[in-house]
């Protein structure tokens, strides 16, 4: 749509701007403020420059949780995106079953995040949970509270359980937007199922998939509640991701300076990645 240049439109955006500025810029400035000062009490504070940043960047805790976070996000994307596409391809296209499918798929998305943690906490326990009990009965020793690998896999499976539906729903609506003509042409050419997927469906899904990848990356990158409820970050630090390291630092130990510096670095990483995605997305829109 061709838009009319009109700077008066700012008046319409002003309430949003004011509201988001209040809840984004003010807190952000506070964080910046903390990150360059050493604060003992409200009246005693020193300007320390970039010391906190230096300290945080050399902190092995940051390195470890950053690494864990990237591995986790990569695993999440590697599993959820293909699985989501597969499920979307298998969903019925119309009628009563289609809407039933949509509703069932949407259920995990609507469960409060700590309840997701609770569900898996209950489900995975060896004594009272179906999953833990079954696995142990089948001869696999499984205990997410004490075994590092088990905890890790449980958090991963929980995230797949929680969020694959989102990818599937996005892809499903992307698939519905492909006109029938394409499929008819493919049938005339006797294209194989794989060819239909590779040369018709996948290219048409590109923009939707970009959004799905972005959302899943962002949300898995700031995951906090679910592992917090399920494992509390343990055993050891096996499932302590960035958000949790940060909250521990800020609220647990009250290390305001390092925590603030950490926050800003964390935010910059996210900002950088989302800028890359946004550019790719708008570029995609323009070339279409």
């Amino acid at each position, binding site marked *: 749509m061709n*838009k*009319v240049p009109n*700077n008066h*439109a*700012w008046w319409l*955006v002003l309430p*949003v701007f004011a*509201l*988001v500025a209040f*809840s*984004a810029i*003010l807190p*952000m400035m506070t*964080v910046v403020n903390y990150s360059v000062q050493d604060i003992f009490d409200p009246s005693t504070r020193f300007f320390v420059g970039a010391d906190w940043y230096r300290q945080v960047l050399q902190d092995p805790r940051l390195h470890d949780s950053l690494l864990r976070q990237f591995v986790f996000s990569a695993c999440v994307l590697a599993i959820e995106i293909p699985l989501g596409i*597969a499920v979307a391809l*298998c*969903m019925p296209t119309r009628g009563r079953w289609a809407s039933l*499918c949509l*509703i*069932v798929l*949407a*259920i995990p998305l*609507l*469960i*409060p*995040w*700590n*309840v997701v943690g*609770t569900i*898996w906490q*209950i*489900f995975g326990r060896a004594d*009272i949970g179906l999953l833990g009990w079954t696995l142990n009965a089948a001869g696999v020793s499984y205990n997410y509270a004490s075994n590092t690998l088990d905890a890790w896999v449980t958090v991963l499976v929980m995230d797949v*359980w929680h969020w694959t539906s989102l990818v599937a*729903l*996005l892809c*499903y*609506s992307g698939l519905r*937007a492909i006109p029938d003509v394409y499929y008819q042409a493919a049938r005339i050419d006797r294209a194989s*199922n794989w060819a239909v997927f590779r040369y018709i469906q996948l290219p048409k899904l590109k923009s*939707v998939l970009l*959004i799905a990848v972005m959302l899943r990356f*962002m949300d898995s*990158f700031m995951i*906090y*509640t679910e592992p917090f409820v399920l494992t509390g970050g343990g055993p050891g630090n096996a499932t302590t991701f960035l*958000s*949790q390291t*940060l*909250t521990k630092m*800020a*609220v647990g130990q009250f290390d*305001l300076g390092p*925590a603030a510096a950490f*926050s800003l670095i964390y*935010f910059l990483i*996210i*900002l950088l990645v*989302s800028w890359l995605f*946004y550019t790719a997305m708008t570029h995609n829109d323009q070339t279409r």
Partner: protein
Amino acid sequence: MHARKLVVLIVFVAFLLVPIYWLLNMSFKSNTEILGGLTLWPRDFTLDNYRVIFTDPAWYGGYLNSLYYVCLNTAISLSVALPAAYAFSRYRFLGDRHLFFWLLTNRMAPPAVFLLPFFQLYSSIGLFDTHIAVALAHCLFNVPLAVWILEGFMSGVPKEIDETAYIDGYSFPRFFLGIFLPLIRSGIGVTAFFCFMFSWVELLLARTLTSVDAKPIVSVMTRTVSASGIDWGVLAAAGVLTILPGMLVIWFVRNHVAKGFALGRV
């Protein structure tokens, strides 16, 4: 081919539903049965866990608090996002693209970053432990989202409608409220659904900004952990009850949600 599709779908749906079935199953059991051994359905069917929740003000108050701030947040988000989305969909103005990106970055901001400053900000203006504080804090990610979704729906409405209305002598507010909003009803429904959902599932900010009066259900749930261990039955029942509002909302917007997803905006 068809059978294989069905199998994939059934396996996936089963994977989604089994943990929920287990939660439901446990919510109808007594604690002795839960800890006594594994039973696939409640042998000794009981509603006691639910009774605990519905008779204790601390419990059902949590639900009311949550619903209160979630609705408040949805109302605030929608009312500020509607004009802004209209501006983004119809006009080009100074810095519009940057503003839009800036709004989106707030959707991407990790809530953990804002934890401490929010706490201090709301404490210093005397809003700590009020519903409005949580509602405002959730605006951080819901307003950008609402603007994003609504902009998509509004761009789908032909511009000629605006122009005709202005030629007919409609003022902007009358046109916007009387003609334009009814046209994007389903878009507003979908947006409200997503605002409701993201505010309902959020825990970190809601827990940080409240202590007693506005304590949300998601943090009341930690009450089940006591010195004598975890009260599994009540915990499961509370979990089941938190799923219900979401189910109810999605039932109402089920026909529109596919459309909202089709715009590729969540």
